[in-house]
């Protein structure tokens, strides 16, 4: 499983990256969370907002949420 956070390098994007890393650790997973700041990657996914949480190259969540449980359930459902 490839978990990525794509963002333009803004504060909110970094926050989502930190939260996703935390979620992965709390779930006891070994996966690395990758932080991508190349914006053309976001657009190529067909998304016009950032940050984006993507799993295996597919966007699963657009925009920021302060809800770590939601991130966990998105990762779990993959």
């Amino acid at each position, binding site marked *: 499983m490839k978990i990525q956070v794509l*963002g*333009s*390098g*803004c504060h*909110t*994007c970094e926050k989502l990256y930190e939260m996703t890393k935390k979620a992965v650790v709390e779930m006891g997973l070994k996966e690395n969370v990758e932080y991508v700041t190349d*914006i*053309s990657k*976001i*657009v*190529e*996914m*067909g*998304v*016009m*907002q*950032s*940050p984006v949480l993507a799993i295996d190259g*597919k*966007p*699963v*969540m*657009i*925009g*920021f*949420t*302060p*809800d770590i449980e939601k991130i966990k359930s998105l990762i779990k459902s993959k």
Partner: protein
Amino acid sequence: MDLFFPVQLFSDWFSYSLLKLARKSVVAGAVNFFVFDSIKIFILLAVIIFIVSFIRSFLPPEKTKKLLSNRLEIIGNILAALIGIVTPFCSCSAVPLFIGLVESGVPLGVTFSYLISAPMVNEVAAVLLFGLFGPMVALIYIASGVTIAVVVGFILGKLRLESLVEDYVWKIKVGQNKVDNKSGFKMRLYDAYLYTADLIKKVFPFVLLGVGIGAFIHGYAPHDFLAAIAGKGNILAVPIAVLVGVPLYSNAAGTIPIVKSLIDNGLPIGTALAFMMSVTALSFPEMVILRKVLKPKLLAIYIAVLAVGIIFTGYLFNMIF
């Protein structure tokens, strides 16, 4: 004001009964002001942010894109400026949004109408202005920003500035992916609640600080001391207010309490508004991010347009009120 009468009762009770401050004393005045204003602003903020983020969940960028493509250009300009009111302009999304819009065939001028209106007309600011200063102020604030966005976007569109957009932008292939991000009424409400709670938490210290400074000025500074140095007589006050605001960066919610205390103490409303708009719209980090898609010349035009538009709005308000 009636709506906030219970809040006034509470702050009276808090200052005079609980803290036993003498009714006419300066301290009592400042404390009373602080308690009343912070409670009022937090109530307004919570309600507004909740409603706006709920409405916003019905207007994702993908829908914006659809609404803006394939229309008569001037209609596109007007629509784009109106959509700019309710959508936030955060440095995070500015670039992907820009690329997504121009790539899907939305004219550059229409995209600019949106790029100007989104930061200039802030929906939270508009409703706070409504709550604190009345409907006229809020209405003129919106009308001024939207008009500038429509006119300038239209002119920029006619100038054919496509060559001033970074070349790689035109080469990106926009993907087709559907994400069911927000579905269901309950989910939207819950998301709006989370967003509101998060934002309130974020602006909490700024609002308290702003109201605190306001309360101090209210109680201790000589009345109308700002009017003397930056009043309507001083024609340079508006541009200076804009310059002061550029290096500062905060969102509208945090700036409004300070703006209110400035106005309460004699700063003309247009000058104070120009300051607020400069803080929220002309921000350095946002410009750095936009530089990724705009060549320096176009970025300079964009900044100049925003600055002139804000200064214009400042003078307009000072003329009317």
